[in-house]
């Protein structure tokens, strides 16, 4: 009978735990990053970079209270950097194609997405974490590295700005 390889058992358990975590969280992180960078392919690349970092630190990060917050923080920081790089690159303006006719629901969705895209990247992240992922304010603050009070103020301003862009100022309590 061979001697049990405790190191291999640990690595196997880590791989399984990471795979479960990845399967559960990766799609959500990609969608969150899509809100911030407005580019699905870039969001996938950035999310994968964050999960590579997570995998390399899995033994430590998996012991944290919220690995979900950790990977989102890394992913969002990368997304913010990506946005800064993209903003410095020259862009060629293409002639706008005529807008196809859309139904009311699609039009409403496009209106909201257009308004979100008009927000600064950090505000998009706030809106994504709060509205899309339905995270409590304390978690939003943790992910973005803000104090809860600062996160509350920033979120209120972002919602107010979004409501103005949507001509829906009744929707946000002053």
């Amino acid at each position, binding site marked *: 009978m061979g001697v049990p*390889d405790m*190191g*291999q058992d640990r*690595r*196997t358990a880590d*791989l*399984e735990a990471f*795979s*479960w975590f*990845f*399967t559960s969280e*990766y*799609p*959500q992180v*990609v*969608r969150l990053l*899509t*809100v911030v960078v407005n580019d*699905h392919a870039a969001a*996938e690349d950035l*999310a*994968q970079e964050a*999960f*590579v970092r997570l*995998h*390399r630190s899995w033994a430590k990060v998996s012991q944290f209270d919220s690995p979900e917050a950790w990977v989102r923080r890394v992913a969002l920081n990368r997304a913010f950097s990506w946005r800064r790089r993209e903003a410095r690159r020259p862009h060629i303006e293409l002639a706008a194609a005529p807008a196809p006719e859309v139904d009311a629901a699609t039009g*409403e*969705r496009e*209106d*909201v*997405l257009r308004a*979100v895209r008009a927000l600064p990247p950090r505000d998009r992240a706030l*809106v*994504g974490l709060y*509205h*899309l992922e*339905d995270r409590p304010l304390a978690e939003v603050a943790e992910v973005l590295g803000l104090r809860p009070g600062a996160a509350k103020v920033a979120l209120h301003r972002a*919602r107010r700005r*979004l*409501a103005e862009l*949507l001509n*829906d100022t*009744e*929707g*946000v*309590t002053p």
Partner: protein
Amino acid sequence: MTDDTRFDARVRGALTELPVPGDLETRDALVAVLDRSRGPRRSPRRSPRTWAMPALAAAAVVALVALLAVVVDRPESPQAGQAPPPSLSGQWELDAAGLTDPGWRGRWLLSFDEDGVLTLTGPAGAMDSTEGASYAVTGDHVRVDVFVNSACAEQTAGEYRWRTRGDHLLLVVLDDVCPARAGLLAGDWTRVS
């Protein structure tokens, strides 16, 4: 409904329509992340002690190779005629919506039967033969040779790590030279019976 709640619902409704990666894309991304994570890291900044770097790099490579060898180590061929582990037995389903081959898209059923028989049933458009497929379990590894007479002809069996949690079976690719098989099997299966 208050105005705040209505506004929240309006924004949430639009954002949740944004696309998320499907099962197949998520599986591919997991494989890519594991590959990249195990790949070479960026070169560290040079320090005055450059004499030590080659030795440290060599040690790191040796450690990495040893780790990969353990992680992807093939188990010995299992005994034929085995019964499946209780947690693996039964029937599992997966909605393979994102596969490249349109004929393979749809609901697949997978069951690990007695005597090492693997039964895989695809949607109506999947013409590839799954007859005569077998599996073999060793610990948390499972080797499968499904599609050996069709999409994966003349290719070796694929090896996966399996784990169940509740009504879910997660299959992770360890080694499979047949991308079509890996694309279908790797992922999160749900128990049917």
